[in-house]
């Protein structure tokens, strides 16, 4: 194989195997003024794949709001960065590792975490928290159990070995993700303003240095692989599996931060998808420069690797950096101290070209910009007929169940709603000792040591709403994430998104994509939240079609004083319980409709952006005046589930429980009032002595509010409809996933 690949002739068949369309190939010929050789074809193939080139999504992504006075770095770099005051900044980003995880769950998820961590520390930030968003098929499927267990284990091992807490996340189980799980990993890092560094190569003659693990044949064409549908055939494409080495990454992180903070570098970029190819051409392109490298100088793990293989390898835990003039030796000294492989493999030039040699012999010579400027497509879109069907759904055809206690019990145990304790108990969420609100509340909170500042963070997605109404669903995803931040008492300042969709070349999928982007953009503009970066994962298809359109939103919130934080559970007997917002009127698109009646249809809830914003403002004002004891938003399972979740803490093993007795507001069908998922609603508890002041602030902000009951007792009672011991609800909620996994 090693000698033969160089001799491969570039035929239409070879071009097709590289995932390039004939017109794209013609374009390459035009750029080069000649036929590319096989190595050059490989470069274009990975850089023009959807994963690196965003060719089907770039036009729409440009419509999203990315600016704001706190934004220090927007999209286009390894991660976005925002100012949080006192000279500090936060770097954060979410990224998908769906396809590798579907093939090899443990390694796929672990390398996903490794990749996103590198994105953070390459910007000069020290990672301080991880989050993740996971989607699988139904948990009763043995195949899903294996995937779920493997993915969680992979995330846990990587984060735990690195000593970075995994503080929040979400998991959804739905048929739509059968055979195509979603694994989206997010990381958050802290840095000082003057520590920001970017992935650019400048300064003719500056040394280009390779650091980290050795290069092997693993993961060749991973990026191209991520841009095609998973089929039985691709489960055989097993060379795409990369093995994670968190201990190596830990060394890489410490060395990288020492180099950056020691001011020894011009630029740095991690080698993720498309490996050495992507890092060299992107750094050259951003710096408006050229790069010349010799692949023979790259530290290799296997013998006889061709330039093609070295350039396209996706071996993990590697970085490319450009040293400042005169600093090359110092860089090597730091790397030697951390026991890392390092090699000067080339220099920065002013030619604008990416030139690759092997022992001095030219093997590739292409304009660096041309690799980073993949063609932009505007695929056809057409509204799926099924969307009209959903709208025709008549709720009157669904009978209201007689035993609503039983319905609630079933919902509490539904794996999508139930506590994810089985998951987060495997994660070290306290390491670094900054975690103030652990997993299990609406948002996790960490402190910025040495200051009063705090960060609230959450990750959310609502694929089932987006499937029913992509525009409204996307708005709700942003609103729910921001609401989670608001419930914790913080101000949402910025967001990162990971857009998981099916094949964009199918007009119906592209219609969803287009509407979701519109919804995300409108919600962000209304809330004044910029999007600072993210990732697109397309070609996610299950055997019956595309997955539910699933935008995942990672939201960052800021506390000026972290002592203002609020958790979701009730604190004291006798506290008043209030509902902010309106009681539910509809069961359309609800988890209840799915779990109890087996239907995924109807109109998903609608969202009024103004109402939502008023709610966020009240919550922040209430938290700052210490007028609320707890705040929890109503989401999956509606009012009844949210009330139950407020009755116990998500933290302790032996759940601490506090009952509640409330009236059921409203008229109309009782299941809609209990389990409907109307938006912009929060359950709060308030000390009786604060009630007057509390109501004043809420009313001043124009938020509907009603005192519905009181905390206390051993039961949760809602009107005459629901009456259950809290310990029973807690048991169902906390042990459901554990019990299913033990079967």
């Amino acid at each position, binding site marked *: 194989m090693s000698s033969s690949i160089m001799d491969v002739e570039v035929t239409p068949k070879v071009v097709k195997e590289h995932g390039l369309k004939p017109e794209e190939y013609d374009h390459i010929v035009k750029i080069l003024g000649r036929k590319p050789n096989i190595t050059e074809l490989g470069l274009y193939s990975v850089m023009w794949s959807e994963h690196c080139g965003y060719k089907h999504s770039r036009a729409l992504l440009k419509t999203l709001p990315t600016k704001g006075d706190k934004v220090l770095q927007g999209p286009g770099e390894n991660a976005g960065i925002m100012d949080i005051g006192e000279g500090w900044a936060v770097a954060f980003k979410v990224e998908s590792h769906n396809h590798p995880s579907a*093939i*090899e769950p443990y*390694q796929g998820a672990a390398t996903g975490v490794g990749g996103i961590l590198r994105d953070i520390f390459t910007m000069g930030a020290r990672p301080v928290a991880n989050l993740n968003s996971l989607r699988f098929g139904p948990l009763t499927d043995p195949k899903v159990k294996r995937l779920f267990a493997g993915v969680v284990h992979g995330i846990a091992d990587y984060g735990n070995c690195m000593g970075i807490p995994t503080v929040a996340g979400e998991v959804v189980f739905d048929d739509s993700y059968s055979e195509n799980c979603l694994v989206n990993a997010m990381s958050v890092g802290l840095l000082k303003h003057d520590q920001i560094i970017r992935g650019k190569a400048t300064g003719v003659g500056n040394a280009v240095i390779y650091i980290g*693990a050795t290069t*092997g*044949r*693993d993961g060749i064409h991973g990026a191209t692989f991520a841009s095609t549908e998973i089929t039985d055939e691709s489960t055989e494409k*097993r*060379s795409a*599996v*990369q*093995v994670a*080495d968190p*201990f*190596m990454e830990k060394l890489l992180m410490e060395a990288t931060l020492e180099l950056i903070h020691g001011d020894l570098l011009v630029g740095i970029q991690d080698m993720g998808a498309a490996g050495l190819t992507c890092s060299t051409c992107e750094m050259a392109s951003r710096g408006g420069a050229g790069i010349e490298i010799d692949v023979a100088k790259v530290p290799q*793990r*296997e013998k006889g690797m061709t330039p093609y293989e070295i350039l396209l390898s996706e*071996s*993990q835990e590697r970085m490319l950096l450009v040293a400042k003039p005169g600093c090359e030796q110092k860089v090597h000294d730091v790397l030697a101290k951390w*026991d890392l492989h390092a090699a000067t493999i080339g220099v920065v030039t002013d030619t604008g070209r990416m030139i690759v040699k092997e022992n001095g012999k030219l093997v590739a010579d292409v304009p660096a910009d041309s690799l980073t400027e993949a063609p932009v497509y505007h695929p056809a879109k057409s509204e799926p007929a099924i969307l009209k069907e959903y709208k025709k759904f008549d709720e009157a055809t669904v009978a209201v169940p007689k035993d609503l206690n039983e319905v609630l019990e079933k919902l509490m145990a539904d794996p999508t709603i139930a506590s994810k304790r089985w998951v987060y108990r495997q994660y070290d969420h306290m390491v670094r000792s900054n975690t103030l609100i652990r997993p299990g509340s609406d948002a996790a909170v960490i402190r910025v040591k040495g200051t009063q500042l705090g960060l609230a963070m959450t990750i959310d997605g609502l694929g089932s709403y987006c499937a029913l109404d992509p525009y409204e669903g996307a708005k709700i995803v942003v609103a729910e994430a921001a609401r989670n931040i608001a419930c914790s008492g913080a101000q949402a300042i910025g967001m990162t998104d990971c857009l998981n969709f099916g094949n964009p070349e199918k007009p119906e999928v592209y219609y969803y994509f287009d509407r979701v982007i519109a919804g995300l953009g409108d919600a962000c503009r209304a809330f004044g939240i910029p999007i600072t970066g993210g990732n697109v994962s397309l070609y996610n298809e299950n055997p019956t079609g595309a997955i539910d359109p699933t935008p995942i939103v990672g939201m960052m919130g800021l506390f000026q004083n972290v002592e203002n934080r609020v958790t979701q559970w009730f604190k004291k007997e006798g506290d008043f319980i209030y509902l902010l917002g309106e009681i539910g009127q509809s069961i359309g698109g609800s988890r209840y409709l799915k779990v109890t009646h087996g239907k995924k249809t109807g109109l998903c809830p609608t969202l009024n952006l103004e109402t939502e914003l008023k709610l966020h403002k009240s919550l922040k004002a209430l938290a700052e005046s210490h007028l609320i004891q707890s705040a929890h938003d109503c989401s999956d399972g509606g009012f009844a589930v949210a009330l139950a979740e407020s009755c116990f803490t998500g933290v302790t093993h032996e759940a601490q429980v506090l009952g509640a007795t409330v009236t059921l507001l409203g008229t109309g069908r009782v299941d809609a009032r209990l389990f409907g998922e109307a938006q912009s609603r929060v359950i709060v508890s308030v000390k009786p002595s604060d009630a007057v002041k509390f109501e004043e602030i809420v009313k001043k902000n124009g938020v509907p509010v009603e005192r519905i009951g009181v905390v206390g007792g051993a039961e949760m009672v809602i009107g005459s409809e629901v009456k259950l011991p809290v310990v029973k609800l807690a048991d169902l909620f906390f042990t459901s996933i554990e019990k299913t996994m033990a079967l």
Partner: protein
Amino acid sequence: MAWHVSVYVTLKPSVMDPQGATVQRALNQMGYTHVTGVRVGKFTELEFDGSLSEMDVKKQADEICDKLLANPNTESYRFTVEKK
């Protein structure tokens, strides 16, 4: 009479082996500087009763390796069958 099957599971050559690399580094630091490569794998012994033919034992052992003992994504395996 019984069958004794020895199963060797190793990482595929193209798959990185952080454990092996760590062992190698340790050996080199201990002064075994001539060690230039280490790959760590797993060794499993299976006992079958004597009622199966050698061919059936091989067939079942192969299935066992493929389904449970080895991860076909990253590992390859081989085994030997002995009469005891």
